[in-house]
């Protein structure tokens, strides 16, 4: 049997605080199978993004192990490991260099990893995320939010990574643009052998894209369940139920109408 694409074992991360170390992630374990889309949900401060950053090697773990396809990840990621895992951040306004054109943003990972044929790869990468080739020499400020996020996704995919780390990739987008980006992820998933880890505060987004979901609260993992079970409200932990109820929307006390669900009839 193949080892999991990502196996996190007893991971702990703590940060320096003014009154001693602050523990952001405590004793967390989970495994993501190859080809799976795995979600992590939680509220601000739950440590969900820190888990992603620890996997990417952007923050140091203070305890535990992370293995990628059976290979232990050390304190620093090797060049090969870095090209095998790529990250997409929340805010495409902040994650793209304002004075680099789309072309330059896509050139950079290829140059770093000394990959031949940048021309062909850039054209393909742009086509893969439905970016008009005419936008290739534009600057980020000349693009819409959705186009920018497509550039960030193209930049992540251009190295053909095995693992995609998505940190709130649609939270800064309007609902119509979010729909386009989520649909793009669906297409990418069906056309590539790719494992994805999606971090989001939005249960509906996670249930839409992922097969399994981990729920985090205050640095710990409260439970892992399938998206199906989440939809059906078959959570074991009370916190998951709290999150589910909150996500279905606010209800006025004694409200004459149900409020939710908000599906077009």
């Amino acid at each position, binding site marked *: 049997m193949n080892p999991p694409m990502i196996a996190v074992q007893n991971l702990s991360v703590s940060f320096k605080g003014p009154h001693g170390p602050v523990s952001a992630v405590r004793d967390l374990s989970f495994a993501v199978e190859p080809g799976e889309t795995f979600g992590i949900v939680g509220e601000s401060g739950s440590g969900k993004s820190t888990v992603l950053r620890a996997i990417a090697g952007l923050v140091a773990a203070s305890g535990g192990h992370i293995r990628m396809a059976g290979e232990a990840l050390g304190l620093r990621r090797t060049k090969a490991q870095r090209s095998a895992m790529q990250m997409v951040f929340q805010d495409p306004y902040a994650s793209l260099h304002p004075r680099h054109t789309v072309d330059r943003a896509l050139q950079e990972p290829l140059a770093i990893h000394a990959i031949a044929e940048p021309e062909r790869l850039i054209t393909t990468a742009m086509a893969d995320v439905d970016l008009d080739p005419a936008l290739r020499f534009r600057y980020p400020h000349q693009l819409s939010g959705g186009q920018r996020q497509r550039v960030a996704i193209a930049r992540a995919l251009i190295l053909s990574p095995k693992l995609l780390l998505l940190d709130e990739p649609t939270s800064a987008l309007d*609902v119509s643009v979010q729909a386009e980006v989520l649909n793009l992820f669906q297409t990418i998933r069906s056309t590539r052998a790719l494992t994805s880890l999606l971090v989001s505060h939005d249960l509906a987004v996670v249930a*839409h894209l992922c097969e399994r979901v981990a729920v985090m609260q205050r640095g710990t993992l409260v439970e892992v369940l399938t998206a199906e079970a989440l*939809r059906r409200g078959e959570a074991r932990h009370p916190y998951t139920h709290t999150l589910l109820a909150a*996500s279905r*929307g606010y209800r*006025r*006390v004694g409200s004459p109408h149900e*409020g939710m*669900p908000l599906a*077009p009839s």
Partner: protein
Amino acid sequence: MTMTVPLLEVRDLSVTFRTEGVVTQAVRNVSFVLGRERLGIVGESGSGKSTTGRAVLGLVPAHGSVSASRLALNGEDLRHLTQHQWSRYRGRRMALVMQDPKFSLNPIMTVEKQITEAWRLHRRTTAAEARKHAAAMLEAVSIDDPERVLRLYPHQLSGGMGQRVMIAAMLIAEPELLIADEAISALDVTVGNEVLAILDRLVAERGMGLIFISHNLTAVAGLCDRVVVMYGGRVVEECAARDLAHARHPYTRALLAAAPSLDEPRASLASVVRDPAWLT
């Protein structure tokens, strides 16, 4: 016999911005009437929803021009007020709660100072009296230990707490109209719902009118009585909040279909196709 005057009347409101010779029509002929009720204004970025709220408060920046055939609070014309006259309305009779308490609270002022400032600006009272009112107001926004929170600075507050303090500061002068612009968008969903419950209760208890501006259709459907949907600076649809799921306009329906749903799995999300005819 006198007709009841609506709390707020907006008729043919247009806002135009001129920057470097480029003219942008941010709001085009928007009309609505608000009673002592909760009106939601929904739309995506650039729909003109926030600018509409700003225009009602006389807060459109200098390079923008506002026109309306009627803009009245309790029958009083707001269209030709001087800055000095506006100050008697803003804060005292109408107030604004914005998205992020991190930016709307003064970082070097204690909570007490920020809340009592609003109170003392509009009433002649002693500091002790103002403090008493501030503490009562914090209790009204469900803060358990007002005496402690009054001494804190904004950086010592969580997002939800900050937004409660903001609401307390805005409501202490007992305005008739509250405009909340993306007031829960920076908050976690559980905290956001708590803030909605507080707004809901205060609006009912004080008989205020509320304009709740948001991109979040779920929140608007849960909180409001009526909803106005804006697109490209125009109102494309107005309906009762409980009927939002059965909205008629193709744009509103597309927005509903584009959102992933917890209750019904959708293989792919509908993309929002925009019809240029909506803008004519």
